[in-house]
């Protein structure tokens, strides 16, 4: 019973702390939809497979929020027809590559200068690699159904494979660029109602994710994970698991890491700071509005593998 009460309190703490950031994300996504007519600027984004994720990653500087806030913004980007690479580059790198997170990392570790460049650099590399990997999967198997349909509306018909179309003219030349349906701005009333629906859908997923994270961390003794602190590979794995379970926002995770920085290997510390913003239990629900379950599994597995390699590599140099 005591355990249950503790889990209930942790759940409330996680949820109430994340809610304002989710609201901020939905607001920014809504404003972007309202102020900028659909596709006007999105069509100017570079489509080059290398340049697109770089632009996406750098967009993080425009949104100083943590990982829960940027899911709705990434969804908005993808729904307006932005290149996949830009959407994913933003989704995976923006939680680290933004001024607040970089400042909090610096405030927590002023004496570990290597961490100040290794964290953004690692996040950047992981975002590029994940974007490249997910880019190899056909969109219809990658993106969640409703998002895919919204995205199709703002894409030129010619960029959609013949087998994926439901209607169309066979034999029409690809030269005619399809104009996006209406580029008129939404009424404020429609905008409010649309943002409300989006917020409520994401909120339901955040509730489920927070509940899962609270239950797992109440019943899994944290000392077990940190006991593995000094082994070069096991420590990296242990701290990755911790990042997955704890699910705190990327804007404060550096302060949490400060608590056990002295007990773990440097690679494990970096792994904790890199994996948390990309994959954690609280995010698992939110990602379902973007990706298919299979794509989420691929993202989680490959991000973990890359973080493990980066962690081991850092340990090899630093130890």
């Amino acid at each position: 019973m005591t355990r249950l009460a503790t889990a209930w309190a942790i759940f409330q703490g996680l949820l109430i702390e994340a809610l304002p950031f989710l609201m901020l994300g939905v607001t920014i996504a809504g404003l972007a939809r309202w102020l900028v007519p659909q596709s006007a600027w999105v069509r100017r984004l570079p489509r080059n497979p290398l340049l697109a994720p770089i632009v996406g990653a750098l967009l993080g500087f425009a949104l100083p929020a943590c990982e829960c806030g940027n899911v709705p913004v990434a969804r908005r980007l993808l729904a307006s027809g932005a290149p996949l690479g830009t959407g994913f580059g933003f989704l995976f790198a923006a939680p680290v590559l933004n001024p607040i997170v970089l400042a909090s990392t610096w405030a927590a570790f002023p004496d570990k200068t290597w961490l100040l460049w290794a964290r953004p650099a690692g996040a950047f590399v992981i975002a590029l690699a994940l974007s490249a990997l997910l880019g190899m999967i056909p969109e219809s198997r990658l993106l969640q159904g409703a998002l895919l349909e919204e995205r199709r509306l703002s894409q030129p018909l010619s960029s959609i494979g013949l087998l994926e179309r439901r209607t169309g003219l066979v034999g029409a030349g690809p030269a005619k660029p399809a104009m996006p349906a209406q580029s008129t701005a939404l009424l404020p009333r429609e905008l409010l109602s649309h943002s409300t629906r989006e917020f409520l859908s994401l909120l339901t997923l955040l509730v489920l994710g927070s509940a899962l994270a609270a239950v797992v961390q109440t019943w899994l003794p944290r000392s077990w994970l940190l006991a593995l602190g000094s082994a070069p590979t096991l420590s990296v794995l242990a701290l990755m698991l911790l990042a997955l379970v704890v699910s705190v926002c990327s804007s404060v995770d550096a302060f949490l890491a400060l608590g056990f920085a002295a007990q773990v290997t440097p690679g494990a510390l970096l792994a904790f700071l890199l994996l948390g913003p990309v994959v954690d239990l609280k995010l698992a629900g939110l990602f379902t509005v973007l990706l298919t379950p299979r794509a989420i599994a691929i993202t989680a597995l490959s991000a973990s593998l890359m973080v493990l390699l980066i962690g081991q590599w850092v340990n090899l140099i630093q130890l």
Partner: protein
Amino acid sequence: MRSLRHLRRAAVLPPLVLTLWGWVLVWSSLSSRLDLLLNAAFHPVVAVAGVVLMLVGLIQLRLAGRRRLPVAPLGWLLSAAVALLILLLPPRPSFSDLAASRPDSLPAAPSLSFFLPPEQRTLTEWVRLLRSQPDPELHAGDPVRISGFVLDRPGEPLQLARLTVRCCLADATPAGLPVDWPAEANPQADQWFSIEGTMIVQERNGVPVSVVKPTQMTLIPRPERPLEP
């Protein structure tokens, strides 16, 4: 079942659920519940978000009318139920239980290199000091005046502890001091005590450590702001 379906199509449902969640945030701020859950830096953020959500919800409630919408996902009703539960069941965490499974890895305050006189130090400051200057002889005989909760870790003697929180309860980190509990005292996990006494040196597991020897022990209610930043 039909009324449930009616409810899920009502245009007032989304703004109602939104207002309810806004109220959860506002109420959590007003009822000082946040003191138990989050670091103080986040309290204004939560209050502002709550007010904004309620405003947006109420504006839409006025505009909604009796229109019918496509059936709302069941998850929205579920989230409304969770919001009501949060309002009805305030958090009652067991600090001892929470702290028992977590290691004492108190963040060192990087800029703090001076300490207050012994009788003015809080429990957390004592733990920080003992970690930076671990020789127990240095502190023997110092007066101690601290308060904290009783931390019961399986297989270890009871300690007096505090929780440090950077973000929310999920990252709470305990800082505990060993206490030489008087024979007549019967401390129970999660009870709060205010202790006045002195620091002494005791051998535990063959190692000399600093231990608080109480001269006066008072059972106190949980403080309004139990978490340390």
